[in-house]
Structures are given as C-alpha cells and as structure tokens.
C-alpha cells in the first residue's frame, strides 16, 4: 500500500472515530431531566461492561480452565472491594498459574 493511500485511510478512520466521541461529549451538556432517559444513561455503563465481560472473559486466555480460574479470583477480590489494579493483577495471576500448571502436567 502506498504511503499516501495509508494516510488517507488513517485520516478517515481517525476523524470518524474522533467525531463520534467529541460531538456528543461537547453538545449534550444540559443535564437530562427525564427519569427514564436518565435511568437509561445510568444503567448503560454497567450493562456495557457486563455484556462485554461475559461470556468473553471465558475465552480471553489460552484455555477456558485458566480463564475460569482468573474469573473466580476477580469475582472474589471485587466482592471484597479490592482496587481495580489488584483485581486485574489477581485475574492475571490466577489465569497464569493454571496455564503454568497445565503446561507442567502435560
């Protein structure tokens, strides 16, 4: 692909993606009063993250077993109110230990 073509693609990609983020963030500054609309935007963050996490988390590592281990660690740590970083690292450690265990057992 010629460098010039690359830059045309790049600009279209970047500008489209930027405008999608910028226009609503800049224009919708008035507080929403409608109870239902407001509730919708209260729910959206958590419903997006929930739907993005399950079931994808179970396929995020090398095997479903290690992913399940990482998921359980993350659930326990979050339930106890631990920090984002600790939960993330815990999930990683849980998954990695099972992966390593499986590697040595094979």
């Amino acid at each position, binding site marked *: 692909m010629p460098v010039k073509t690359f830059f045309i693609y790049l600009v279209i*990609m970047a500008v489209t993606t930027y405008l999608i983020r*910028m226009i609503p*963030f*800049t224009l919708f500054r008035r507080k929403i009063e409608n109870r239902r609309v407001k509730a919708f935007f209260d729910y959206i963050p958590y419903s997006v993250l929930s739907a993005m996490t399950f*079931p994808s988390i179970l396929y995020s590592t090398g095997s479903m077993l290690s992913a399940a281990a*990482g*998921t359980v660690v993350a659930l326990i740590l979050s339930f106890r109110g631990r920090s984002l970083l600790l939960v993330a690292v815990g999930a990683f450690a849980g998954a990695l230990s099972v992966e390593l265990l499986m590697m040595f057992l094979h």
Partner: protein
Amino acid sequence: MADKARGKGFKAGLLHGLPIGMGYLSVSFSFGVLAISLGLNWWQAVLISITNLTSAGQVAGLGIMTSAGGLIEMAVSQLVINIRYSLMSISLSQKADSSMNLPSRMLLSFGITDEIFGVASGSGESFSRRYFTGLIVLPVIGWTLGTFLGAVIGSVLPQILIDSFSICIYGMFIAIVLPVCRKDRRIALVSALAISFSVLFYYVGFFDFLSGGFASVLSAVIAALIGAIFLPSSKKEADQDAG
C-alpha cells in the same frame, strides 16, 4: 452530599488509569502483531493506535486498508463499530463537572473508550477535568507502546504470558461493576440482564450474524432500555437532580 470524585485530581486519575494501561498494553500488543502480519510497517501500526485508541474499530480498519476497501466503507464501518462511544459520551457528559469547559471537552473526548468510560462513570457522581486528564494518560501510552512492542518483538515473548495478560482488562470490568451491583439492586438487575442477552447472542447460532462487539452493545442497550422502562427512578437520582 457525599461526592467521592470531587476531591479526585490528576494523580487519582493517573492511578485509576494504570490497570487500564496495563490491559491495553496486552490488547494492543496483539494489534501490533496483527498489523505487521498484514503487511504494515511498525510506525503505521503505531500511528493507527495513537490516533484511534479503539480495539474493534482498528482491527476492522486494518482489514479494510489492507484489502484496498473503499473510503466510504472505512467511514461507515468505523461509525457502526464505534457508535457506542456516542452513548458513552452522552452519559459521561452528564457526569463531567463545571471544570470541564468546551476546549477540554473537545480535547479530552478523544480519550473516551469502553474502559475509561467505565472507570470515569464508576468514580463517583461527577468527575473533574484534571481527574479525566490523568485517567487517559496511561491508557494512551499503554495502547501506543503495546502496539509498538507487538509490531517489533511480537514473536519473541512466550505465548502463555500474552494469553494470560488479556484477562486483566476483564478483571478490571468486574472490579468496576460488582461493587456497584452490591450497593444498587437496580444496577445489579440490569447488569444480570445484559449478561443474559450477551450469553444468548454468543451461544445461540441464530445470532451469529451479530459481530462480537456489536452483540455486546446490543445486549447492553436492550438491558438498559428494559431497566429504564421498569425501574426508572431512585433516591440517588433525586439527590443528583437537587444538587
């Protein structure tokens, strides 16, 4: 009014951005590897990452670029895949406090991603310009650096490490959602509903035409709509309206 985010400045944002940056390092690493395998240079991969800051959209864009797809196709695909950011932007716009003026909004909106949105939303009832600036720094660095590393040394690291690294980002999502669900039963219900739809779309063959990212957004929107219709108000909202 108890407002956790009011005291949160640049440093708190930076700290909250750390796990996101770590997660991005691993996710963008695979983007770097992919870009090279499709024939791009390392600097092209890095440029895409630093100007787009999005996973699904970049992967789709890469495919269109390397298959010499149309320019309109490029714009439309980015619009469809990334339209969820518009919803997040509106939601975040409600939570940004008065320190977030017009130029800051125009500049910082660049950093709205799924994860940054999740953390900023979960940080309290409102957030400041400084907090949000701090929040996006490490994710942007992680995303760009990960792409660079993936493009340059992708084939050297053991696969087992890269594989396990990817779960970080999901662990972080759980850490954002679960504590809020424990406090607010309505959010717990809507989240459970979103997961049910997501699982349904994932495992039922009939829904295979929905791409992964789009299926998640659709699940989330349906769940939030049902929540908005049947569970529209709470005391917390009344407080916010008054404040």
